[in-house]
């Protein structure tokens, strides 16, 4: 029986378009990626319908973690003198005695969450090891505690710098307790600051509510 010869087809597929697409996606992700800043504490923020812009520069962020410990962070790209001024005022008011080299370390830090007595010790730790250091949180009481000095120092530093307007961010964890938040507000209030921005995760407005209709009307 004569065998029917099936024409041999090449199994090689031209992968060029496939590779093209793959690299296009790759390029997109490289461009779109913004690395998470290394943070010593994990904070899950609550969600809200408000969609105000998150400022990532010229801001002071007060972080409240899930154990209600408070941390202080300064964002100031382009004005490094602000950091020197802050440490300068803290030194002046609390005799912390932080040296110049330790101040340089402060500039690279993600967040400070220690009492003044431990501040030098923390700043002496190399930056790459700081995330392993367990920070006790800035001491707070009903009238503000040490956080008042930090806010005051930052406020003065930004006034001296003059060019940038300081924004106050409060980033609280879902599980942190309300009294801590109230004490943070009190520390702000002592410095005559009454406007803050709470960091939240964006969320859709529930259908049929007043805000939902308002958003729809403006679109």
């Amino acid at each position: 029986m004569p065998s029917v010869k099936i024409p041999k087809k090449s199994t090689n597929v031209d992968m060029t378009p496939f590779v093209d697409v793959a690299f296009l996606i790759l390029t997109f992700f490289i461009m779109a990626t913004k690395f998470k800043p290394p943070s010593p504490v994990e904070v899950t923020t609550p969600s809200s319908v408000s969609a105000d812009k998150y400022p990532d520069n010229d801001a002071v962020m007060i972080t409240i973690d899930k154990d209600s410990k408070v941390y202080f962070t300064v964002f100031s790209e382009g004005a490094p003198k602000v950091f020197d001024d802050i440490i300068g005022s803290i030194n002046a008011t609390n005799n912390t005695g932080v040296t110049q080299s330790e101040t340089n370390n402060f500039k690279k830090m993600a967040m400070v969450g220690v009492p003044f007595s431990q501040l030098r010790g923390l700043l002496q730790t190399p930056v790459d090891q700081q995330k392993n250091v367990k920070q006790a949180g800035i001491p707070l009481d009903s009238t503000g505690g040490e956080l008042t000095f930090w806010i005051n120092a930052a406020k003065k530093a930004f006034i001296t710098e003059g060019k940038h307007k300081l924004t106050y961010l409060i980033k609280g964890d879902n599980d942190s307790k309300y009294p801590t938040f109230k004490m943070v507000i009190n520390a702000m209030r002592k410095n005559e600051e009454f406007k803050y921005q709470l960091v939240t995760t964006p969320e859709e407005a529930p259908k049929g509510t007043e805000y939902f209709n308002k958003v729809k009307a403006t679109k």
Partner: protein
Amino acid sequence: MSAIEEGGDSGHKKGPGVKKAKKLSTRVDMTPMVDLGFLLITFFIFTTTMQTPSTMKLNMPKDTKKEEEQNKAKASGALTILLGKDNHVFYYEGELLGDASNFKSSNFKEIRDEIISKHQEVIKNHKHDDTCPETQQKAKAKGDPNWQNACADRDFVVIIKPNDEATFKNTVDILDEMTINGVKRYAMIDITDTEKKLIAATEGTPIK
């Protein structure tokens, strides 16, 4: 892919001993490159943080000792919301009665209906006075779709009192509820001891 073909013998005359060059394929095996490409894609997909956080504005009033500068809330238009532990919500309308009979238990799902119904009630009971048209026109100029209710909205005040067990999430959620329901006037105030006791008494057995 285009492969460059050599012309073969045409035109050229090769001398003796000149070997014909071996034809090399111009095709490159792209598999390792593709592998690497996808590895990088996977890496970047995982590390990308697509969602940037948003913020919510919060303005607190200045402390004032002077009586005339303090904001007064009409009892008829006030709704007090208390936040307890484990996402419990309590509320009462107007002033808290001596026997606490208007103190009610709720949760985050149901409190919205309560805010809306109280809001409607306040709007319905509102009596226009001389300052009303001005307030309405101001709101209209701002582009408020509910400008007709602008002066009635002034009567409606929500007072938020989180207790020591309430979480930050609860606080933000209730502030969010104010935005969602278009409550123009709300305030965060310290909880009183009577209210604390009432919450503690109710929390053991939440009433529906």
